[in-house]
């Protein structure tokens, strides 16, 4: 009975509404916004942030990509299109003659980067890629290389000059580094 009376009293005095209004007023008086004024201030990205994709180069400027198509196979959204061909004059080496990425479809899962055997793909920390024409998001090889150049200014050494235990292939046999026994 007392409980019922109490509930009735709460109903007619709008007790629950008053509690809610007290909560909002408390937030108004102790004003501590959590908003980040985005274009003026940007959040710190986590270390493993997966942003725009890029093609990378070695320190002497040659492309890392060997045109193996594994990224194309790994991609779940069919973003990547690789047209592979032989390096002119070096029949044992291959490279990506054309390389397209349709970034409108990319979901930034990073599977292509994992799939790449020569670490030719990288995920940069760029994310401001809004454009007015979505055709601008169909990126070609020079564009992807440019993104890689500006995001990874420090490049790796050529494969044959690296530590011999690093995985490698598609290196002409004459350049094959001697393996330590």
């Amino acid at each position, binding site marked *: 009975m007392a409980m019922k009376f109490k509930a009735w009293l709460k109903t007619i005095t709008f007790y629950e509404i008053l509690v809610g209004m007290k909560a*909002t007023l408390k937030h108004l008086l102790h004003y501590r916004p959590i908003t980040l004024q985005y274009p003026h201030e940007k959040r710190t990205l986590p270390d493993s942030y997966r942003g725009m994709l890029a093609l990378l180069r070695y320190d002497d400027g040659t492309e890392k990509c060997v045109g193996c198509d594994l990224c194309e196979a790994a991609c779940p959204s069919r973003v990547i299109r690789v047209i592979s061909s032989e390096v002119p004059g070096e029949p044992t080496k291959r490279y990506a003659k054309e390389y397209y990425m349709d970034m409108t479809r990319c979901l930034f899962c990073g599977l292509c980067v994992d799939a790449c055997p020569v670490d030719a793909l990288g995920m940069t920390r760029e994310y401001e890629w809004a454009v007015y024409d979505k055709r601008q998001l169909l990126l070609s090889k020079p564009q992807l290389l440019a993104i890689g150049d500006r995001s990874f200014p420090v490049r790796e050494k050529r494969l044959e000059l690296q530590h011999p235990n690093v995985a490698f292939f598609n290196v002409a046999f004459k350049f094959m580094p001697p393996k330590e026994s």
Partner: protein
Amino acid sequence: MFELGVKVAFSLAQIGVVFGIVLLTVMFLTLAERKVIAWMQDRMGPMEVGPYGILQPIADGLKLFFKEDIVPAGANRFLFSLAPILALVPALIGFAVIPFGPNLTVELFGIQFKPFVISDVNIGILYILAFTSIGAYGIILGGWASNSKYSLLGGLRAAAQVISYELNVGLAIVGVLLLAGSLSLVKITEAQAGGFWHWYIFAFPFPQIFAFVVYVISAVAETNRVPFDLPEAESELVAGFFTEYSGMRFAFFFIAEYANMILVSCIAAALFLGGWNAPYPGTLIGHLGFPHFAWIEQVVWFAAKVYCFLFLFFWLRATLPRLRYDQLMRFGWKVMLPIALGNILVTSIAAYLFPKS
């Protein structure tokens, strides 16, 4: 002839000033609402246009002014154009009888004027109720003429809601009218002079506190504000009755909504909270020996009451979720209406036992 000319000129000047103040307040309210609700929800609100976003209303107004004016295919063009005007005009015209300050008379060229009320109609409150009802037509016609299911549903909801809650507004006011013995807003406010214990919300024979609560809730519902914003429920009806409106026509509906908010706040201040009267007898400036400038304090008191009431609107919007439609109707007819009727009964008995001397 000269007398008539002066009268017309003075009235036009008064109308212009009130119109300007109301529209400026609407501009300010659009910003204040966004800011207050943002602060209550730990956000910042508009921050880009001008320092701390204070020029946002001007930017919004300019944007709406230059927007394309779209009339949807299959819409009734005449009614579609008429509806925003029909919503806006009644909202603004109600300010004609609101007393913004003391009932002074100023003599100019030998003719007496009342500077703080455009026209002291002796049925003032009835006039406002009549015109706010016409405002409902604007909403219904706007919803119907748009040739869109969302607009039609919003218009229907608005019709049902405004009509059922208007009844409660009217009945809540009746208690005050019984105590004051007048329909003129100026006379009602004058009857509440001399301290806050004379305000009708606390007044002696029977405090109108229940009527005030009923009035506040019904006023929120009548102006289609959260938690009674079913006619424009954005999660169900896109934007309700003004889904298809764009540009200045949308702006008309928007201004009408905010002008209605100001109007119901003015009525609440005048009827229940003593209007221009300070919560203590007389005025501070009058006690200090400048009775000619007492009107400044009284106008400030009126504005303060109105703004407190407007803040309540924002506060409710930041706090409460939307009601379901059947809850809204049940609350209006089964809870508010009996309370208002009971209040009238008790007030009339109290007014009969303790007649005004």
